[in-house]
């Protein structure tokens, strides 16, 4: 199969959906002429014109309000927030309007938009351009939250998100954009709410999101050389969450390491841990559930500090080894 980068896979999903459905359009800061801050929408304005690839002023609230309104009148907009940090400015429309409307109108209205946004650190962009704020939106009923970790998942999940009748926060990762992987040419969907076992193993389960899936897979390779067989589970969508796949894996291995980049306190790992502890998997736990997550600090500008602020492969190896060896 041919290989595409994560960014190319997203672009292809956008192009194919815009070709398939004229109600789909793109709106955001510098998504048109400039091609997006990370080049994701490069070339789409030439193909689909300024009416369907719309550059906005620097106002995230405008983007969120526009896609909410457009979705309400029958369009299928795909907004972009250039850095997830700025989603703070858009959250009134997302949290109080888009997430609520369907419920408050008794299901007579729907808000079928996708809001794409890159999260994560590792680019030296410091505290206001490096955050991972996905769990804020997991907490809001009415929003779906998707976090692809591979080019294949990015394309399939984005097409599924565009076709979904609910507002979807589609969280990409800046460091993943250039990561390549096999991607089919034809359009396909990955149903929201389906996790994937990215690697099978018997000794412990690592549940990881976004770029941490890639790091967990690298860690698993190293650990396999030591005889520790790690199972890596990628929820892919945080909401709705595929609890069944997660629980099944935990029952199989009895040990869980949860890895995400967002700050540990109040992060999605706490939700995952609780889901496991509340489930029948509890009786199979042979060690405490361990979370490995970003430190509870703003992402530092200093590159060394930035590196150590979030889990790296070596941290995952160490944490998984301790867990597998019964030292936790």
């Amino acid at each position, binding site marked *: 199969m041919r290989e595409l980068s994560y960014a190319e896979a997203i672009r292809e999903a956008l192009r194919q959906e815009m070709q398939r459905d004229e109600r789909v359009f793109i709106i955001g800061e510098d998504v048109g002429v400039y091609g997006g801050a990370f080049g994701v929408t490069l070339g789409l304005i030439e193909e689909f014109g300024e009416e369907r690839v719309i550059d906005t002023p620097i106002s995230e609230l405008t983007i969120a309000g526009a896609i909410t309104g457009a979705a309400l009148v029958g369009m299928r907009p795909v907004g972009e927030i250039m850095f997830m940090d700025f989603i703070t400015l858009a959250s009134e429309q997302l949290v109080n309007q888009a997430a609520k409307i369907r419920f408050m109108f008794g299901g007579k209205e729907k808000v079928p938009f996708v809001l794409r946004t890159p999260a994560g650190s590792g680019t030296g962009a410091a505290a206001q351009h490096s955050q991972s704020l996905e769990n804020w939106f997991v907490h809001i009923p009415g929003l779906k939250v998707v976090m692809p970790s591979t080019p294949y998942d990015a394309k399939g999940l984005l097409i599924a998100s565009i076709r979904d009748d609910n507002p979807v926060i589609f969280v990409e990762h800046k460091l993943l954009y250039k990561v390549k992987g096999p991607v089919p040419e034809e359009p396909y969907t990955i149903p929201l709410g389906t996790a994937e076992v990215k690697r099978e193993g018997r000794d412990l389960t690592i549940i990881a999101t976004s770029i941490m899936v890639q790091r967990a897979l690298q860690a698993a390779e190293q650990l396999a050389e030591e005889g520790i067989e790690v199972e890596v589970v990628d929820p892919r969508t945080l909401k709705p969450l595929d609890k069944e796949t997660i629980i099944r894996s935990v029952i199989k291995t*009895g040990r869980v390491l949860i890895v995400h980049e967002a700050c540990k306190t109040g992060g999605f790992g706490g939700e995952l841990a609780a889901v496991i502890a509340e489930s029948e998997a*509890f*009786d*199979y*736990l*042979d*060690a405490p559930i361990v979370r490995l997550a970003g430190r509870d600090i703003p992402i530092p500008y200093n590159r060394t500090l930035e590196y150590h602020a979030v889990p790296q492969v070596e941290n995952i190896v160490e944490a998984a080894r301790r867990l597998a060896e*019964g*030292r*936790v």
Partner: protein
Amino acid sequence: MATPVIMPKLEMAQETATVIEWLKKEGEYVEKGEPLLVVETDKVTVEIESPASGILAGVRVGPGDVVPVTQIIAYILQPGEELPEGARVEPAPPPPPPSLAPSAAPPPPPPSPAPSAAPPPPPPSPAPSAAPPPPHAGAPPATPVALRLAEAYGVDLRTVVGTGPGGQITRADVEAALARREERPAAPPPPERVRATPAARRIARERGVDLRAVRGTGPRGRVQAADVLAFAAAPSAAPAPAPEVIPLAGMRRTIAERMTASYQTAPHITFTVRVDMEAFESARARLNEEAEATGGPRVSVTALLVKAVAWALRRHPWLNSTLQGEEIHLLPEVNVGVAVALDEGLIVPVIRQADRKGIAEIAAEVSDLVARAREGRLTPADVAGGTFTLSNLGPFGIEQFTAIINPPQAAILAVGAARREPVVNEAGEIVVRPVMRMTLSADHRIVDGAQAARFLVDLKEVLETPILLLW
């Protein structure tokens, strides 16, 4: 203006506090916020800070006093200030027990700073001569950051050894004290609670394993799934089958009591000797030929042994004796008991005056007594009056054993099986002979080794040369 020092109410349900010690003395200058005294409640020991800067005065309670909360226990005075009316130091009244009604023994009214009173003296400009002591007097010197850390984490600086210049407590010292505090091992779980993972608990439940018996190899001794699996796989995991319980009663109880008494009161000495049984066996064979020809009783090994033992006992009366208090009684009759094994124990019928009976008579008696013993038809007279006991386990194939003396007798002979084995004869040749080992246990209070040896030598001789029985 005099500031009262009030016994504070530190807890919701607190009625009194006990004074542990004053950190400042009467008349000493104290800064506002400085620790003034230490009090103890039901739950905690706390330092009470001074409510004002000034001179401690009018201390009305001392260490050990139980003081109701909200009561005034001292004053902080400004220089030159007098104690308020009614605040004179008197012998501290016995503190009312906490159960007293609030109306009882009302605390002295707080000195309401009467507006009419003379205006308070101006705040004391700290006279250079009376420089206030440094803060944290009593505690060793500490760096500001050490002070701040100690306060934040509740470290008592008096318990910290300073390693800085002049014993100054540094940040590192406080951090070390904190680390020690954290290193203290966690309290062990109550005995009935076991640290175990959920998986270990599930497996234990499924397999009926008592987790308290499982050794945990996880952190802090936590029992993990593998520990339970290993425990369940170990053979010892099978619950020990309950023993079959038989009451110690009847013959068993009698044997237990008599053997214990014998072994504890009579110091046993044992002697083993080997006997060449060829002549004995041929004599017995000849006797049995005679028995067959005449229809007389068959002569068993035991019967012939009884005859030989009686013969030897007649020659060694100390082996045929009994200790009665302060006296040793050499017995006139030689009555040889024969131990007979039964399912429920053993019994010792007696061949009376065996030294005076012929072999045919003894043989008939032994077979009769043994048969009746096995049938449970012995009379008390059959088992009474024994002066020596013979125990022959040869028929079981036992080669050699020691027996416990049957009290009040002086000795017992344990006889093993006769087996053909190589021996070196007097010519220095190795020949195969039937050899029997017999072991005498004797009561050392009566019998000494040489005596016992002489008896055994004679017995061996008569067994190896049966014709001596005619002597």
